[in-house]
């Protein structure tokens, strides 16, 4: 979920001062949301992994740009990831690789008491969401971005992103209801 922006900036500063462990900490904080954002965009687990790594390499290279772009690193990282995903889509290689491997595992329980069948339904439903809605869910519900931050990442208006998120909730409910009836 949401991270303390000041801590992100401090970690990046430590990394630039030569502290490699600070980068590991940043990676641990943001990797899951970035990975699943990439999966939502590519529907390809292998490609998503590549994009996750490329985003962090760019963070390492452009650390100063990232710090000046925003006090939180999540918007920067997700923006980079989307750009790279768009670039991959244009290449033949990514077309060949699409759908090569894609698991239905998006989420796990964070606290006790989640019904396993409900969790399975949610995972299935998340996999069926249109890309734009899946992105809105990953960015807002899991990466902890505000609608405004998500709008900046997605190059859309705040109303558009909020609409996509609400539409995603509605669609998830429909899909899960269909799943539980089946």
């Amino acid at each position: 979920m949401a991270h303390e922006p000041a801590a992100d900036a401090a970690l990046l500063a430590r990394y630039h001062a030569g502290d490699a462990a600070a980068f590991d900490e940043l990676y641990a904080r943001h990797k899951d949301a970035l990975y699943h954002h990439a999966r939502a965009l590519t529907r390809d687990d292998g490609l998503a992994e590549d994009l996750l790594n490329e985003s962090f390499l760019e963070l390492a290279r452009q650390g100063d740009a990232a710090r000046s772009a925003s006090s939180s690193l999540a918007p920067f990282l997700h923006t980079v990831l989307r750009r790279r995903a768009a670039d991959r889509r244009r290449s033949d290689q990514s077309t060949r690789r699409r759908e090569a491997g894609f698991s239905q595992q998006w989420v796990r329980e964070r606290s006790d008491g989640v019904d396993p069948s409900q969790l399975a339904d949610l995972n299935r439903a998340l996999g069926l969401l249109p890309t734009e809605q899946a992105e809105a869910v990953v960015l807002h519900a899991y990466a902890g971005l505000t609608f405004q931050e998500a709008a900046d990442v997605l190059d859309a208006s705040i109303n558009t992103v909020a609409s996509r998120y609400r539409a995603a909730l509605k669609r998830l409910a429909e899909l899960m209801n269909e799943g539980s009836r089946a």
Partner: protein
Amino acid sequence: MNENDVEALLETTALVPAPSSRRAPPAVRPWQGRLMTAAALLVCAAVLAALFVAPSRVAPTAPSQDELQKTLDAILKRLGDESIEARDAAMKELRGFLDGDAKAELVQGRLSKLGADARARVEEELERFVSRRHGRIAYQSGLELRVVDWNGRNPGRLAADRNPPIGVEWAPDFSRAAYTSGNCIEVVGPDGERLKRINCGSREPHGVSWSPDGKRLTYWTWSTGDAGCRKVWVGEVDGEQKQLTDEQSLETHPRWSPDGTWIAFWNDEGSLLLMHPDGRERHALATLNTKGVEPTCLWTRDGKALLAAGAEDARIVQLDGRERGRLEGWGWNWQWSPDGTRLVFERENNIWVVDGDLKTAKALTAEARENRSPAWSLDGRMIAFLSGRDDPRERGVKGFSPRLELYVMEAGGANPVRLTTEGVQSRPSWMRDER
């Protein structure tokens, strides 16, 4: 399970961890960071010096054609760069560069010199530039509110319901649209997301007009008590709805003035009336023959006059009641051009345009089959309209009405193109391209 349940469920879950196959980041030495900071400081100092220490500041002049060409060529050159970041930055610059027709033509002229990948990206950007300028078109097909680009690309569904979406009106800032859906007014976002249902206890609320600040609506409904009565309402989009005319009235078609201080509306005797949004200072402005037709009133852009159209003529009427222009004959589905200088309307199955003083009217279409519901694009260069010209069925059956489809043509009437095949039932409405 509903949306709230899903949101609650999301909060009890976390994303499955990403696989741990991270590549090592490049090692950074401490002095590198300091060096970068020092370099950034030097650049800042240079910029500040250029801004404030320069001996005299020369007023900026418009760049010459050669300078524009050089700027463009530099941008296009970077589109072939190996670095993804450089290419993306160049695309962003190209978007900023494309701020008018002349520059779009310059870019068009350079297309043949680009490689396949760069050319595809530049063509896509040119198309987006045009779409942002014209807008996209929302239209009703059956129970759906649909949307399509001006050139027929990217068709999609904005909203769907149990009732047809009729009379779509966008708020002045295009952040919301309102339309009639059964016995409610539906308010949706630019993605078709349902935001609000208004006055669902009334009978067929019609003819929505937004206040200039986009916070209030005025519209008319049939009376719930007496089927013959019609009344004008005004209300907050997010709040209370108030009936402005009394239960026994026969008053319809309200339109909000551009400055928000007046609402113009019609009564069943053909009088065009004005009142403030709280119902005060109600008075008649003009009287026309409106028997058998739905009258029209449209404010001029400056709010100093109205187009009033009835069964026998259309007039430009000033707020003091004086007439500024008149066009004989019945016209329907009027709309001002975005610059407020022309009106487009429908007459005898064809689309017409007339200047703002109603002096010179000209037919834009000349078809035997129906041409209806014209609507200006946001930049006034295109007109969307409905037409039955391509319906292959022959007339002859009583009551036959051809299937209408959505078309666009240039504002002068040239190059009409069909955009749909699914059948379109009510007036198209241009919206801002938010993509």
